[in-house]
C-alpha cells in the first residue's frame, strides 16, 4: 500500500480495534476499568501511562491472552474471546520481556516461528532472508539469542513478531531495555510497518515515544483519562505551561509548591516549568501570586508538551 493509500485508509476510518467498557479484575484489584477504545487501520496508536496503569493487561486482552471480566472487544472484525484463534493468525505480539529462546540461534528462532505460523520450505527461507535484510540480522544468524545485545534482541523480537505479516501488531513496552540510538531505529521500523498498512499499538512510558504516535491514549490506574492525537491533546491542555526564571530558584520552588492551581513544577536547567490549571489568565495570576509572597521572578507562557498533558490529566484525577 502506498503512503497516500494508507493515509486515506486512516482518514476513511477503517476501525481495527473496538473496545467498549473493557474491564479486567484480578481478585479485588481492577486492573482495567471500563476502557473504551477505537484504533484505525495503519495508525501507530500509543498507550501512555505509568507502570501498573493497565497497559499490559489491556494489550493481553486485545491479543486474546486474557479474557475480559466485563465489556466487549472486537479485533479485526472478530469478537474476542470467542474468535481468538482467528485473531491469532492475523496479529503479532511483541512481549515486554524478551521471549524468544536464548539457547537457540537467531535463525533457529526464526525457523521455529515460521513453522509455528505454517510457513515452510522455500517460503520460509525467503521470508527469513527478507527479515534478515530488513532488520540487519544477517550477520547474527548463527549467534545464540541469549548472547545478543539489547538492541539486537529488540530487532530479533520484532522480526519474529512480524514473521507472518500480521495486520495488527501489539507491542508491550518494546524499548524499555534499549539505548537511544536503537530506540530511534526501532521507531523507524515501526513507521515503515505502518506505512505498509500495518496497524500498531504500542505501550510506552517514554514521552518522546508517545509524541511520535498518530494517536494515543493516556491510562491512569486502569482508566482512560485522555485520548487523541498528541497535538490535539496538547492544544486541549486543561491549563497552561509557564516558564519562570528567578535568581533564587530554590526559594521560588518552595513558594510555588504552596500555591493552589499549581499542578506540577519541574526544573529545566536554570529555569522552572510550571503547570497550572488556570487557562488564559495564567501568566497574570502567577505574577500576582508570586508578588504577594515577595518572590521576584520573570513569568512567560511557553509551549505545552505531552508531559504537561500527562501531569494535568492524571493529577486532576488524584484530587477528586
Amino acid at each position, binding site marked *: 500500500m502506498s503512503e497516500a493509500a494508507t493515509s486515506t485508509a486512516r482518514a476513511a476510518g477503517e476501525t481495527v480495534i473496538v473496545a467498549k467498557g473493557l474491564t479486567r479484575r484480578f481478585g479485588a484489584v481492577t486492573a482495567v476499568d471500563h476502557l473504551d477504545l477505537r484504533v484505525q487501520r495503519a495508525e501507530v496508536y500509543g498507550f501512555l501511562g505509568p507502570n501498573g496503569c493497565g497497559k499490559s493487561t489491556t494489550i493481553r486482552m486485545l491479543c*486474546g491472552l486474557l479474557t475480559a471480566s466485563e465489556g466487549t472487544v472486537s479485533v479485526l472484525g472478530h469478537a474476542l474471546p470467542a474468535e481468538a484463534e482467528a485473531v491469532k493468525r492475523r496479529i*503479532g505480539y511483541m512481549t515486554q*520481556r524478551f521471549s524468544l529462546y536464548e*539457547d537457540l540461534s537467531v535463525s533457529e528462532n526464526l525457523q521455529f*516461528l515460521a*513453522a*509455528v*505460523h505454517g510457513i515452510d520450505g522455500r517460503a520460509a527461507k525467503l521470508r527469513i532472508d527478507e527479515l534478515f535484510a530488513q532488520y540487519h540480522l544477517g550477520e547474527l544468524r548463527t549467534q545464540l539469542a541469549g548472547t545478543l545485545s539489547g538492541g539486537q534482541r529488540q530487532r530479533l523480537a520484532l522480526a519474529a513478531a512480524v514473521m507472518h505479516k500480521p495486520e495488527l501488531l501489539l507491542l508491550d513496552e518494546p524499548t524499555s531495555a534499549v539505548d537511544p540510538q536503537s530506540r530511534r531505529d526501532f521507531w523507524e521500523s515501526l513507521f515503515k510497518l505502518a506505512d505498509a498498512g500495518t496497524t500498531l499499538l504500542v505501550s510506552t512510558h517514554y514521552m518522546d515515544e508517545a509524541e511520535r504516535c498518530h494517536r494515543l491514549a493516556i491510562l491512569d490506574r486502569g482508566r482512560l483519562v485522555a485520548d487523541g492525537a498528541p497535538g490535539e491533546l496538547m492544544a486541549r491542555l486543561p491549563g497552561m505551561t509557564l516558564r519562570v526564571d528567578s535568581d533564587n530558584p530554590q526559594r521560588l520552588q518552595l513558594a510555588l509548591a504552596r500555591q493552589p492551581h499549581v499542578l506540577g513544577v519541574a526544573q529545566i536547567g536554570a529555569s522552572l516549568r510550571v503547570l497550572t490549571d488556570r487557562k488564559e489568565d495564567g501568566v497574570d495570576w502567577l505574577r500576582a501570586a508570586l508578588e504577594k509572597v515577595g518572590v521576584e521572578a520573570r513569568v512567560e507562557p511557553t509551549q505545552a508538551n505531552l508531559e504537561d498533558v500527562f501531569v494535568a490529566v492524571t493529577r486532576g484525577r488524584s484530587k477528586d
Partner: protein
Amino acid sequence: MDRRRLQAVFRKELRQLSRDRLTFAMIIGIPILQLLLFGFAINLDIRNLPAAVLDESGTWRSRELVAELASSQVLDFRHRASSPQQIDSLLRDGEIGAAVVIPADFEKRLERGNQPAWQLMVDGSDQSVQAAARQLASFPLSSLQYRPGTETPRPVEIVNFYNPERRAQVNTVPGLIGVILAMTMTIFTGMAIVRERERGNMEMLIATPLSPAELTLGKVLPYVGIGLIQVTLILLLGLLVFTVPVRGSLLDVYLASLVYIAATLVLGIFISTLARTQFQAMQMAFFLFLPQILLSGFMFPYDGMPRLAQWIAEIFPLTHFLRLIRGIMLRAAGLGELWFELLSLLAFVAIILAIAIRRLRKSLD
C-alpha cells in the same frame, strides 16, 4: 493438532536438549549411578553379623553347636561373654547384632526336648538382622540330634524359584528401570514445560496459532526416546555387571516400558499445570516419587503392607510396572498373562492426561 507445528516444537526441543549439557549428563548419569549404587549396596543376605556367645554349659555338644553356627558364616563370634549382663551391654552398645546363649542345663533340655535348648538373642531394632536370625533358627543343625537313629524332622525346605542364588540384584535391577524412569521422566518433562512459562516463551507462543496441547506434546515426545535409551542402558549394565537375565521377550520389555514411560510423562505434564516455577515442579515430582518408591513393592514387599497402603499403591504406575517387568524379565511371563497390569497403566495414562488437558485449557488466563 497440526502435524507441522508439532514437528516444529519437537525439533526445537531436541536442539535445546542437545545444547543443555547438564540435562544430557543427567539422562545418562542417573541410570548408571543408581544402578551401581543399588546393585552393590542393597544386599539382603546377611553375612558376618557380629555376635557373642555365652556358653554356660561348656560341654563338647555345646562347643559343636557354636562351631556349626560359626561355619554358617551368618554369625561372626567376636566376643565370648561370661555373664548375661555382658551380653546385654554388648547389644546395647551396638557392638554385636546377635548373641547365642547356651544354658547350663543344655544337655538335659536336649534330652527332654520339651524346652528350647538354646537361645538366640537379636538386636530387634534392625529389621534385616531379625530376618537373618529367623533364617538361622530354622537351620537344620546336626549337633542338635541327640539320640542316634531318631532323625529330627528337617525344617520346611524352602525352594527358591527364579532367583535360586538369592542374589538381591536380580530383584533390584528390573525394579530400578521403573524407579529411574519415574524419577527422571517426570522431573524432566515437568521442568521442561514449566521452563517455557518461567522464561516468558509461553507468553509469546500463546499469541500464535500454536495450541498449548501441541506445545506440550511436542515438548514431551523427545523424552519417549530418552526413556527408551535409559531402559536399554539399564538392561545392558544389568546384564554386563550383575548378569541379570531377560528371561521373557525383549519386545515385551520395551512395550511395557513404553506404556510406563507414557505414564511418567503424563504425570510430568500434570505437574507442569500446577507448578509456576521449575523449582516447584521439581519439588512436586519428588513429592510424588517418594510414596511410589516406598509403596510400590520396590523397597518393601507389597504383601506385607497394610490394606490401606496396598490400595494407595494400586494407584501408582510404578506398582504395576514392577509387576510387569519382574514378570517378563524373571519369570518369562508374556504381556498376555500380565494384561491387568498393562491395562491399569493405560487407565492411569488416560485419566491423568484428561485432567492435565482440562487444566492446560484453564491455565491460559
